[in-house]
């Protein structure tokens, strides 16, 4: 659906985006991550035709953004970092303007009404935008991107300024959109990416440094190697036992104390499930195990490790970790380097077979036919999502 190849953007001598290539399939939700100034917004602006690239090309649905900007833009709904709102208009006037601007040919009242329902702004639609709260403004911005039901939707930090409930709603919305649309999501909130996206692309200093399916990362994140265990018993003996237990490569007392129990953090060796062994050992010793909590790798740590690894050593971690955590971070570093190397290899491979694909310039407009009733379906499915949410709670 979206194909970015060898995209370069220079601002004078400063190179904001340096030879980025990736593809997004139809119906995929992509998380676009990166530290500040990595080139995220620049890339998005080039995707949407707001900026032009220094070299390289972007095609959306087979249409080159530079060659045929009008048709390419017709396929894209874009929510910029700062929602482009006219403060003196009412929400409804604004959406009508967006509708006219995109040259839609649906039933206007119905189409806009559905969008308002989906992003839940129906009750403010006759109010002036300047009197809305930030969360509502953000939602009006999202509504604007959905007008015309474009097959590609690009969100630049969509959940900024929303309250937690709204964030969940918007995430559900993005997930529902992802069933029929191609969505690119740029954000700093890593849980959001994990919750919503199929694939994560991390960009740093204008290069893609990681391109990995979310489930692969999640699997790594949910590993069963690291635990917080709470054990009643003499601290020193327990710790000594833990350190000597085969299969455990690292053990540490944490400060939290609960009666006569201490909390320890342990990390097992790769491929060893230590839990049962630990339980039996402790029961032999007569030290009751009163708590065990699996510690996943945090996606933040992976992100930081990836960025650090690719940052020419200049990007220092925000805080010096204590020695305890330095040990912890090793796993993330390993993970990060794995991802980075894999991506580098992918990029290398893809550049080898480039010329063959370049010939395929055919346009497939019919593939992107815009259905009018999507939002209708979405409203109903959105409600069922909400119900699911309630059940989970």
């Amino acid at each position, binding site marked *: 659906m979206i194909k970015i190849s060898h995209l370069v953007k220079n601002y004078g001598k400063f190179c904001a985006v340096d030879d980025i290539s990736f593809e997004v399939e139809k119906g995929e939700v992509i998380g676009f991550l990166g530290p500040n100034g990595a080139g995220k917004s620049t890339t998005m602006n080039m995707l949407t035709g707001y900026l032009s690239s220094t070299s390289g090309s972007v095609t959306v649905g087979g249409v080159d953004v530079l060659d045929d900007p009008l048709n390419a833009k017709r396929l894209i709904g874009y929510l910029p970092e700062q929602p482009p709102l006219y403060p003196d208009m009412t929400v409804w006037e604004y959406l009508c*303007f967006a509708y006219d601007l995109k040259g839609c040919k649906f039933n206007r009242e119905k189409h806009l009404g559905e969008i308002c329902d989906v992003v839940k702004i129906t009750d403010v639609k006759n109010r002036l935008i300047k009197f809305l709260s930030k969360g509502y403004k953000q939602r009006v911005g999202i509504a604007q991107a959905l007008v015309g039901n474009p097959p590609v939707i690009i969100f630049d930090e969509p959940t900024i300024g929303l309250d937690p409930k709204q964030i969940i709603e918007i995430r559900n919305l993005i997930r529902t959109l992802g069933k029929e649309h191609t969505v690119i999501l740029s954000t700093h909130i890593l849980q959001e990416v994990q919750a919503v996206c199929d694939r994560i692309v991390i960009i740093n200093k204008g290069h893609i440094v990681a391109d990995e399916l979310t489930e692969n990362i999640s699997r790594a994140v949910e590993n069963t190697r690291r635990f917080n265990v709470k054990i009643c018993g003499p601290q020193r003996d327990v710790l000594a036992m833990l350190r000597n237990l085969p299969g455990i490569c690292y053990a540490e007392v944490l400060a939290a104390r609960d009666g006569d129990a201490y909390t320890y953090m342990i990390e097992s060796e790769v491929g060893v499930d230590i839990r049962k062994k630990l339980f039996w050992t402790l029961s032999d010793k007569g030290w009751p195990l009163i708590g065990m909590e699996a510690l996943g790798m945090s996606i933040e740590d992976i992100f930081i490790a990836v960025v650090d690894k690719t940052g020419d050593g200049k990007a220092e971690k925000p805080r010096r970790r204590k020695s305890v955590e330095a040990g912890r971070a090793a796993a993330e570093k390993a993970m990060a380097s794995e991802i980075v190397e894999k991506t580098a290899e992918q990029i290398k491979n893809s550049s080898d077979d480039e010329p063959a694909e370049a010939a395929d310039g055919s346009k497939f407009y019919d593939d992107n036919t815009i259905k009018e009733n999507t939002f209708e379906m979405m409203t109903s499915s959105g409600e069922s999502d909400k119900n699911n949410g309630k059940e989970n709670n």
Partner: protein
Amino acid sequence: MLAIYKKELHSFFINPIGYVFCGVFLTLAAGLCCYTTLISASYSTNSYFYIMILCLIVLIPILTMRSFSEERKMRTEQMLLTAPVSIIGMVVGKFLAAYTVFAGCLLTSCVNLIPLFVIGKAEADLNQDAITHIGPVGAQIVASLVGVLLIGGAFIAIGIFVSSLTENQLSAVIISIAVLAVMVLLNVVNQIGSDSSGTRLINSYVVRFIIDWFCILSRFSNFQYGILDWSAFLYYISLSFIFVYLTVRVYERRRWA
């Protein structure tokens, strides 16, 4: 383009700007008409239209100041530029919206001239054997109106161009007024001393010729005599066109920067 035109026109009247422009323009026009014709007991509308153009130097920038600088400041231009609308469509839409407001006001202000015709008719009835024409000359008025409409278009194009250069509305106004004032006053500089046989300020014909290219008013005089001057037509329309084009270029340039 139509969407942008509609939105711009709409936004003139949800903001005070549109009302301020119309109010000030109509009041000034009415006052000017009184002063230059009725009070000074003259049927000639020459100074009425002449002074009106001088007023437009200040009024038009008020109309055009927000067109692009506001969009840029509010970041709403991102929406326009990522929508399926060409940059030319966007600029022309804005130009036409401002032009509609201006032309509407100008045509409304024509009611000021009705008393002139009424009085002219009454006086002509009294002196039926008079040889000369008594009352205002219709052809002169129509031609002058056409001239003012053309000049207004050129002023609006310049104002929009200046507005696209800056994010700040105030500087857009001030720069536009300065540019327009210079273009109008060049005429005065060129003509100093030309009536009498006295020394001109600028003696070189070449320099005068070049300056003449930039002065908006020098081509207006034919309209005042009731002549539709095609070269002036072409001059004003190409002036509008050039500045609309330059505005488009500003946006293209920013995309490629």
